């Protein structure tokens, strides 16, 4: 009896952890550095739920703005902004102020 109870509890705990774990394991935080009027490398293997911290090392205010308008992050000079990825897909982005600054996010579900 006791064994069955332990097993049941164990299973319940495993199920709860399994339910929680994928979310925790998948969410990652990445930093994209802007320097000398360029976006630095964008991480591969991005997933919905991941967080991108845009670190602006320039003297100038920039933005990270999606071409499809799904995000628009203001980046003060020597400041940063955060974006949580909410949709999957390939999303080209640019700086609204300096349109030659471009990049692309590839986000998996």
């Amino acid at each position, binding site marked *: 009896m006791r064994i069955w109870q332990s097993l049941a509890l164990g299973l319940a705990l495993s199920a709860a952890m399994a339910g929680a774990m994928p979310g925790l394991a998948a969410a990652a935080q990445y930093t994209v550095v802007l320097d000398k009027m360029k976006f630095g490398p964008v991480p591969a293997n991005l997933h919905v739920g991941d967080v991108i911290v845009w670190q602006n090392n320039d*003297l*100038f205010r920039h933005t990270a703005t999606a071409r499809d308008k799904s995000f628009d992050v203001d980046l003060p*000079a020597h400041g940063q902004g955060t974006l949580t990825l909410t949709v999957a897909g390939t999303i080209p982005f640019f700086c609204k102020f300096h349109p030659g600054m471009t990049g692309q996010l590839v986000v998996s579900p």
Partner: protein
Amino acid sequence: MIKQIALAALLAVGMTGIALAADAPTDPQIAHIAYTAGVIDINAAQQAIAKSKNADVIAFAQEMARDHAAVNDQALALVKKLGVTPEDNPVSQSLTKSATEELAKLDKLDGAAYDKAYIDNEVAYHKAVDAALADTLIPSAQNADLKALLQTGLTLFTEHEHHAEMVAGTLK
């Protein structure tokens, strides 16, 4: 009469060429020219912010005021660090004179006519400054920090030129 004018023009062109070839600008002069070029664009931006009713034009002008002020602040910090005093010179004087005339011309315009004239002038002005940076100022700069700042300026102003062209496209 026409011959005399043509000769005077030839001489003027020839002398300018010689003067430029013989006297590459010094670092204190380059710093002054670059700073002056920034001040000119900030003044034009302030006029646009006060006069324009077009949101895209105002946003562009605010960007010009902000970016050029940032570069100029950096330039001032650099000359202070290097113990260099920017030196006034004929190029700075000529830039300031043309800019004052342009501001007066723009001031007489309003509405869409003003917006178009301001943005067209921004395209032309950034093209001219970029050419001066690439062909004269950057190659002539001796100090590595000054050269690096001018190079950042060139990248930035090239972006401004492209942005001005984009805004100009929406005004047509």
